[in-house]
C-alpha cells in the first residue's frame, strides 16, 4: 500500500503547477489576514498573476520535497526561526498571528486533500494517507504555533521589561524632575528628581496642582495658568523662573512643558521636565559680578588704560582716567584709531610703538611721549604690552599711561634749579677762593704793621696801648689761620687728575710730616693692609692727616691710640679712623662737618673749625660719604667711603 510520501511525490512530479494554483485559490477563498497584509504592503500583488504562481510553485516544490525527505518539520522550524529573528522580508515578526499559521496550514491540507481521491487506489489507501497527512500537518502546525507563541511571548516580555526599565529610569532620574500632569496641571506621576528638587514625596504630591511650585508673587500674577495655557495652545512651553520647594526655599528652574495627545489627537496632559539651574544662575551671577569687579578695577585705575585690537589697532577698551586725560568720551574712542584723534606725527609714533610691541611680542616702556589732548599738550609715561592667545598669536595691545606732565615740569624745574645751584655753588667757591686769596694782601699789611708796632713801641707807650697791641696781634694771627683754612677748603674742588696711590706710602709721608705732634703726644698709629686707591694724592693725604691730627688733638688723658682699617664693600672702600680720645656726643655728630663749626673752646683746642668740613668735601669729591660713630668720653670712629675704582 502506498503512503503519504508516495502521494506527495506524485503531486510534486505530476501535479505541481495544478497544486500551486489550487492552493492559491483556496487561500483566496479563506481571507487570511497575513495574506491581506502582504498584499497591502505590496509584497504580493494579486494571487492570480504568473509571478505569484511561479513563486508558489517554487515554495510548494521545496515544501513537498521536505515532506518526502522527512525534513518538513525542520524546515518549518528554520522558517520560524527566521521569523523570530525578524529576517523574513516584508513582514515583521509581530505581524504574524497563530491564526495565520492555522489558516495557511489548513489551506495546504485542503489542497492536498483535493488531489488525494485521484491518487488513491482505494478508500483504505486514501484514508491511510489522509490520516498520515492530518497527523503530519497537525504536528507541523502545532510545532509552528508553539514556536510562534514562544516568540511572541519573548517579545512581549521584552517589551514589558523595556517599559519597566523606562519607568524606573524616569523615576530614578535625580537631576531632572520628570512628571506628568493633566490638562489642568494636576500632578499624575512623580519621579526621584522631582522629589529631590521639590522635597515632596510621591504620596504628598499626586493630584496636587503644579501651582504649589510657584512663588506667591507668581501665583498672584496668575503665572501657573498662563504658562499652562501657552502649552495648551502651542503644545510647548519653556521658561526659566524661581520655583518653591516644600520647605519654602526657592531655586532657579528651567521648565519645559510638552503636550501629550492620545491616538485621537486629543490633549490628555503634559510632560513637565524641570532642571534646577540655581548653580548655573549662581555661576552666571558670579561671572557677572566678577566682570563688574574687573570693570570697576579698570575704571578706577588712576592711569589711562586702553586696549587696542592687534589686527587694526582700533580701541576696544578705554577707561575713565583715559577719558579724563584725553578729553574724549569712551564712545567716541571705541572703534577708532590714533589717526582719528592725534596729529599725524604723534599718531605715527604711537602706531610704530604698537607695531614694535606686537612684532617683538614684548613689553615696551616709553618713558616720555607727548600727546595732544583736548586739554592741550600732555606728557605720558607709557607701557605697552602684547596680549597673546594661548596659541601665541597677538590678540590685543594693552597700554597703560601715566600723565607725567606735572612731574616732568617739576623735574625740568628741578634740573634748572640744580644747574643754577651748581653754578652759584661754583661761583661761591670761586668767590671764597678769590676772597681768601685777595684778603691775604691787606691781612699781611695789617698783621705786619701791628707786629712792627709791637716790636718798636711795646712798653714805650702806656699799659692800655700794650693791651690793645696784643689784641690786634692776636686778631690778625687768627684771621690768617681762618683765611688759610678757607683757601684750603675752596681748593678741594679744583680739579686735578686722579691717580693710583699706595695708602701705606701716603701714611708714612703723613707720619713724617706729623713727626713732632706724634712724638710730643706719644701717639701710636696702627694700620695694616691698606689698599691701593684711585684719587687726588694731595687731598687724600690731607684727609688722613686732618683725621689723625684731630685724633691727637682731641686726646683725653690717655696716650692717643689711632687705628686705621679698611674693607671693600659694594665697589667702595670703607675706611675707619678710630681713636680713644674725648669723643663727641651724638647730638653733634652731624654738626661737626659743617664749616666753621666748633664744639670746644678755642683756648683749650685751638683751630678754625674747618678741618672736618674739608674732610667731608674731599670724601665727597671721591664719591663717598663720611660720618662719625662716637660717644662723649669713649673715643670716636670716623668712617668714610671712597670709590674703589
Amino acid at each position, binding site marked *: 500500500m502506498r503512503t503519504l510520501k508516495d502521494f506527495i511525490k506524485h503531486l510534486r512530479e505530476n501535479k505541481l503547477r495544478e497544486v500551486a494554483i489550487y492552493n492559491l485559490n483556496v487561500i483566496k477563498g479563506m481571507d487570511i489576514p497575513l495574506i491581506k497584509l502582504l498584499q497591502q504592503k505590496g509584497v504580493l500583488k494579486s494571487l492570480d498573476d504568473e509571478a505569484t504562481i511561479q513563486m508558489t510553485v517554487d515554495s510548494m516544490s521545496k515544501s513537498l520535497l521536505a515532506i518526502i525527505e522527512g525534513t518538513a518539520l525542520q524546515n518549518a522550524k528554520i522558517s520560524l526561526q527566521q521569523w523570530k529573528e525578524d529576517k523574513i522580508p516584508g513582514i515583521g515578526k509581530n505581524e504574524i498571528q497563530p491564526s495565520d499559521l492555522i489558516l495557511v496550514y489548513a489551506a495546504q491540507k485542503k489542497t492536498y486533500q483535493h488531489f488525494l481521491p485521484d491518487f488513491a487506489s482505494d478508500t483504505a489507501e486514501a484514508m491511510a494517507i489522509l490520516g498520515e497527512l492530518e497527523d503530519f500537518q497537525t504536528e507541523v502546525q502545532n510545532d509552528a504555533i508553539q514556536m510562534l507563541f514562544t516568540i511572541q511571548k519573548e517579545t512581549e516580555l521584552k517589551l514589558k521589561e523595556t517599559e519597566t526599565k523606562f519607568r524606573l529610569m524616569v523615576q530614578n532620574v535625580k537631576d531632572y524632575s520628570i512628571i506628568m500632569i493633566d490638562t489642568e496641571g494636576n500632578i499624575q506621576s512623580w519621579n526621584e528628581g522631582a522629589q529631590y528638587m521639590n522635597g515632596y514625596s510621591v504620596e504628598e504630591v499626586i493630584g496636587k496642582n503644579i501651582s504649589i511650585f510657584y512663588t506667591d508673587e507668581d501665583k498672584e500674577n496668575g503665572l501657573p495658568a498662563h504658562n499652562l495655557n501657552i502649552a495648551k495652545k502651542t503644545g510647548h512651553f519653556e521658561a526659566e523662573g524661581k520655583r518653591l520647594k516644600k520647605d519654602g526655599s526657592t531655586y532657579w528652574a528651567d521648565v519645559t512643558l510638552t503636550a501629550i495627545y492620545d491616538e485621537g489627537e486629543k490633549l490628555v496632559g503634559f510632560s513637565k521636565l524641570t532642571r534646577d539651574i540655581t548653580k548655573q544662575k549662581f555661576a552666571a551671577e558670579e561671572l557677572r559680578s566678577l566682570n563688574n569687579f574687573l570693570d570697576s578695577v579698570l575704571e578706577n585705575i588712576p592711569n589711562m588704560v586702553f586696549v587696542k585690537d592687534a589686527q587694526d589697532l582700533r580701541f576696544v577698551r578705554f577707561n575713565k582716567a583715559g577719558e579724563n586725560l584725553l578729553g574724549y568720551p569712551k564712545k567716541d574712542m571705541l572703534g577708532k584709531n590714533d589717526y582719528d584723534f592725534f596729529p599725524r606725527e604723534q599718531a605715527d609714533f604711537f602706531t610704530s610703538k604698537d607695531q614694535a610691541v606686537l612684532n617683538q611680542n614684548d613689553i615696551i616702556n616709553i618713558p616720555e611721549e607727548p600727546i595732544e589732548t583736548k586739554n592741550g599738550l600732555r606728557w605720558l609715561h607709557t607701557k605697552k604690552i602684547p596680549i597673546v592667545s594661548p596659541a601665541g598669536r597677538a590678540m590685543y595691545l594693552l597700554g597703560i599711561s601715566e600723565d607725567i606732565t606735572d612731574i616732568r615740569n617739576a623735574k625740568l624745574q628741578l634740573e634748572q634749579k640744580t644747574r643754577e645751584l651748581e653754578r652759584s655753588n661754583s661761583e661761591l667757591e670761586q668767590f671764597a677762593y678769590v676772597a681768601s686769596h685777595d684778603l*691775604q*694782601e691787606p*691781612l*699781611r*699789611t695789617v*698783621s*705786619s*704793621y701791628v*707786629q*712792627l708796632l709791637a*716790636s718798636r713801641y711795646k712798653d714805650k707807650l702806656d699799659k692800655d696801648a700794650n693791651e690793645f697791641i696784643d689784641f690786634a696781634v692776636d686778631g690778625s694771627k687768627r684771621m*690768617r689761620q681762618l683765611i688759610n683754612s678757607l683757601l684750603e677748603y675752596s681748593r678741594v674742588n679744583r680739579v686735578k687728575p686722579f691717580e693710583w696711590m699706595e695708602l701705606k706710602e701716603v701714611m708714612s709721608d703723613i707720619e713724617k710730616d706729623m713727626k713732632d705732634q706724634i712724638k710730643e703726644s706719644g701717639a701710636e698709629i696702627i694700620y695694616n693692609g691698606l689698599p691701593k686707591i684711585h684719587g687726588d694724592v694731595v687731598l687724600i693725604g690731607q684727609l688722613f692727616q686732618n683725621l689723625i691730627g684731630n685724633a691727637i688733638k682731641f686726646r683725653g688723658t690717655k696716650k692717643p691710640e689711632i687705628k686705621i682699617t679698611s674693607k671693600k664693600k659694594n665697589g667702595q672702600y670703607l675706611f675707619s679712623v678710630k681713636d680713644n680720645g674725648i669723643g663727641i656726643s651724638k647730638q653733634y655728630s652731624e654738626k661737626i662737618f659743617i664749616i666753621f663749626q666748633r664744639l670746644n673752646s678755642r683756648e683749650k683746642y685751638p683751630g678754625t673749625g674747618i678741618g672736618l668740613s674739608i674732610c667731608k668735601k674731599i670724601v665727597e669729591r671721591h664719591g663717598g660719604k663720611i660720618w662719625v660713630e662716637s660717644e662723649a668720653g669713649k673715643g670716636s670712629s670716623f668712617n668714610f667711603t671712597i670709590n674703589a675704582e
Partner: protein
Amino acid sequence: MSSYKRIRPINILLVEDNPADVRLTQEVFKDGKIRNNMSVAMDGEEAMLYLLKKGKYAEVQTPDLVLLDLNLPKKDGRTVLAEIKSDDLLKFIPVIILTTSAAEQDILNTYSNHANCYIMKPVDLGQFITVVRSIEDFWLSIVRLPKIEE
C-alpha cells in the same frame, strides 16, 4: 768779608705798587746790617724808565739788586723781568721776585725768564724780617756782585 766794608752803600730798586709793602720793606732794610739806598718804582713802566735812565731818571745809578713784585699796574712784573733779562746792559742785575703769588706757573715762568730767585712774601712780620736778612746775607754779603759802572 770785604762786603761789610763797602765804600758805597748798595743800591736797591724795589718795584712794588703797594705803599704799605714799600714802607715795610724800607723799614726792614733800614734796620738791616747793610747800608743801602732803596729806590722805589710803583709800577712796571716806571721801573723800566728807572733802569733805562730815561726822563727824570737820567741821573740815577744802576741798581745792584732789583726786588720785583709780579702783579703791577701798567706793565706787570713778568714783562719787566723779561725786558731786563733781554737787555744786554741790564741782564746781569740780580732780580729777586718778591710776590704774594704762589702759582706754580709764575714760579716756573719767572725762572725760565732768568729770575735769580723767587720769594713768596711771608704774611708774618717775623718771617718777613728773616727773609730780608737772608737776602742781605746772601745777595749783599756772600754773593759777589758785578761791579756797576757809575
